[in-house]
């Protein structure tokens, strides 16, 4: 069996990748620029010097009775201040403020800025008539992270496409063989954590406002005081998107008294926004007609904050969907750290190959010297070794999900905008766009289908192998203890084999080709009886004395692998590979 391998990285593919990256960066820069442009006037106030101002008048304005107002609740304020030796009057709370749909906030502001009080305001040094009581909230700048991710990803893609990499080994003859330098574990871990952290951040960005904050309020509201609320107006609010889908909300305005002071509230439940399902909202509105007196709950620490229904709304559970992204992100980061640390621990044994640096610990250090010509007695090779697969299932799943989400999100957006939306609105689709999207769509579909496959594979039983001794030797018997963890009852057949492969790499000019040839294959286990598969066992391995030790130099290698397959009906099979070492003959046992 010969497998010819080579790699190609042509200028054409680099240009293609660069165009893709530039489109990405273009999106990010365009949207980031638009956001920044709208935010700039507000954030300029951070450069205005502060001064004292006197609140002449402040009031809560309720315009909910007027139909069609998007922000019916407003905070109006009038204040005086001195700037550049002259007296001025101001009435701006903050740049861009024109009220809101929440009745509590303006009432809180009235309490914060009562008439006759002194407050800090910020005056434009270039035009003292421009003044604000409050500067823009800097946390809003975090939204720029979204376009920044696109730009950052594009830059990274361009860098990786066009940047250099050191040749993995010197071409031509070498007097001293050099093993392939391994990628720094720190870099591997860093890249993995960075990739998964994007998932986690995105997940948290949606999870917190949609689920976490409302859920926290629900819990807090258990200690709120009851009050009598008089319904002033109630209606089912309809909201339609530009795609025509309608959602509904319960729009209420009610009054209540706390300590002799009358407040206005409009919060029905803690879950904000609107959702589908008109009938449930109609029923709620029907029970809360204007003039009705009902029970509401008021925050004892802030009487402006009240709610009619302080329970957990069923729709709130949908807010947990972003949790999946957080789990994938955090789980992926943990898996990367664990896998990197485990790999670093194993290097002590796996570095026993010619030319590799010696490991630091005991037997492994002695074994590491073998390849360059060791003399004297070999060290004890009786240590058992637990074999670990080259890549865990969750790592495979994480990679698959990451790629599938990214590609499907991108392709889906273009497909919706270019094909489905025009069809829905009765327009015509662009033939060019459709043609271009077809191959991408097929790729996206394949990636999508691979996710459930990998997800199913995550729940596969996993082989646990222990080799005794941990390093094989020609002509010497060894033992393999094996068992599966997880739902082993689903396995119908288990097979374990060992393979020895010689691998030769040839470089001429810029191209490099590697050929592989399997010179030894031995099946050491074929199990079909359920009790044997479930319980596992211990098998003897007979290693022919004609075999050679593992060998690794710049261009030529002899590699041994143990392959485990487990057949599962109507489910992805178990397929794992473990690299094993073959020591030279003559060791003490």
């Amino acid at each position: 069996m010969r497998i010819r391998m080579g790699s190609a990285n042509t200028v054409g593919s680099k240009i293609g990748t660069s165009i893709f990256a530039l489109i990405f960066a273009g999106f990010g820069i365009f949207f980031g620029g638009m956001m920044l442009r709208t935010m700039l006037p507000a954030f300029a106030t951070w450069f205005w010097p502060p001064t004292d101002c006197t609140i002449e008048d402040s009031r809560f304005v309720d315009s909910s009775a007027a139909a069609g107002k998007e922000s019916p609740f407003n905070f109006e304020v009038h204040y005086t201040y001195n700037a550049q030796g002259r007296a001025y009057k101001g009435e701006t709370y903050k740049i861009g403020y024109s009220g809101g749909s929440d009745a509590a906030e303006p009432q809180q502001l009235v309490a914060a800025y009562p008439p006759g009080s002194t407050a800090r305001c910020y005056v434009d040094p270039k035009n003292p008539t421009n003044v604000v009581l409050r500067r823009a909230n800097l946390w809003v700048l975090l939204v720029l992270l979204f376009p920044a991710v696109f730009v950052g990803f594009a830059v990274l893609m361009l860098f990786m496409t066009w940047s250099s990499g050191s040749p993995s080994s010197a071409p031509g003859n070498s007097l001293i063989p050099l093993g392939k330098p391994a990628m720094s574990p720190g870099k591997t871990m860093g890249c993995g954590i960075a990739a998964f952290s994007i998932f986690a951040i995105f997940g948290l960005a949606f999870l917190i406002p949609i689920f976490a904050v409302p859920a926290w309020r629900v819990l807090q509201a258990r200690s709120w005081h009851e009050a009598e609320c008089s319904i002033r107006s109630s209606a089912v609010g309809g909201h339609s998107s530009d795609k025509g889908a309608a959602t509904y909300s319960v729009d209420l305005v009610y009054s209540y008294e706390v300590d002799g002071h009358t407040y206005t509230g409009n919060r029905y439940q803690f879950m904000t926004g609107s959702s589908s399902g008109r009938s449930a909202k109609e029923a709620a509105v029907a029970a809360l007609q204007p003039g009705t007196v009902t029970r509401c709950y008021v925050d004892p620490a802030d009487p402006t904050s009240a709610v009619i229904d302080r329970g957990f709304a069923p729709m709130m559970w949908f807010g947990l969907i972003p949790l999946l992204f957080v789990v994938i992100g955090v789980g992926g980061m943990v898996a990367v750290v664990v896998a990197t640390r485990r790999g670093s621990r194993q290097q002590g044994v796996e570095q026993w190959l010619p030319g590799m640096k010696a490991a630091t610990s005991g037997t492994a250090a002695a074994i590491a010297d073998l390849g360059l010509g060791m003399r004297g007695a070999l060290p004890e090779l009786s240590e058992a070794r637990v074999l670990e697969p080259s890549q865990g299932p969750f790592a495979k799943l994480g990679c698959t999900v990451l790629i599938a989400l990214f590609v499907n999100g991108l392709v889906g957006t273009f497909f919706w905008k270019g094909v489905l939306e025009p069809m829905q609105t009765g327009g015509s689709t662009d033939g060019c766009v459709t043609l271009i999207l077809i191959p991408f769509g097929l790729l996206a579909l394949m990636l999508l289908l691979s996710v459930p496959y990998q997800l199913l594979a995550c729940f596969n039983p996993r082989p646990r192998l222990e080799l005794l001794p941990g390093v094989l030797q020609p002509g010497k018997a060894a033992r393999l203890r094996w068992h599966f963890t997880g739902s082993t009852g689903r396995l119908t057949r288990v097979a374990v084999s060992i393979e020895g492969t010689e691998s030769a790499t040839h470089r001429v000019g810029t191209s490099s080709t590697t050929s592989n040839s399997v010179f030894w294959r031995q099946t050491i286990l074929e199990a079909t009886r359920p009790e044997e598969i479930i319980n596992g066992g211990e098998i003897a391995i007979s290693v022919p004395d004609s075999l050679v030790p593992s060998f690794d130099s710049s261009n030529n290698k002899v590699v041994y692998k143990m392959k485990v397959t487990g057949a599962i009906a109507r489910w992805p099979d178990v397929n794992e590979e473990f690299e094993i070492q073959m020591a030279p003959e003559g060791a003490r046992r």
Partner: protein
Amino acid sequence: MTGTDNEIGIELDESRFAFSPLETLRGTVAWQLDRAPTAVEIRLLWYTTGKGDQDVGVVETVPFDTLQASDRRRFEIVAPIAPPSFSGQLISLQWAIEATASPGGETARVDLVIAPGGVEKRLELAVDPLDDLPASMKPMVSKLAQWAARRQGR
């Protein structure tokens, strides 16, 4: 060696060219040069040939001192345990003793076999006999093979 100038050569004792690991290689290096060399050394090395680019590993170097233009010197080198001489379809690994003189760069090389029993190992495709059996027979035959291996291990 002949009487021509600038020559270097290696003779192994008993004309042996096959050794087991940890055996001592003994021999003589002789040279005849125009003038006294600045350095003469013996190197024990392995090298690969085949479908891949050549790799070379110098395992031991024995330099000689107090050099004259013509001389004979004895050397002894212990053969290492690994890697053994082997040949497969893609890679052959061979051992050699090499003598070089500087500054002229005169070189002599003698190929050796260093392997258990002095016999080069062959990587010939070993077909697992189980592969040819019907699937239903494989578990039973596999168990017999394991029983035999356990007996061998004792």
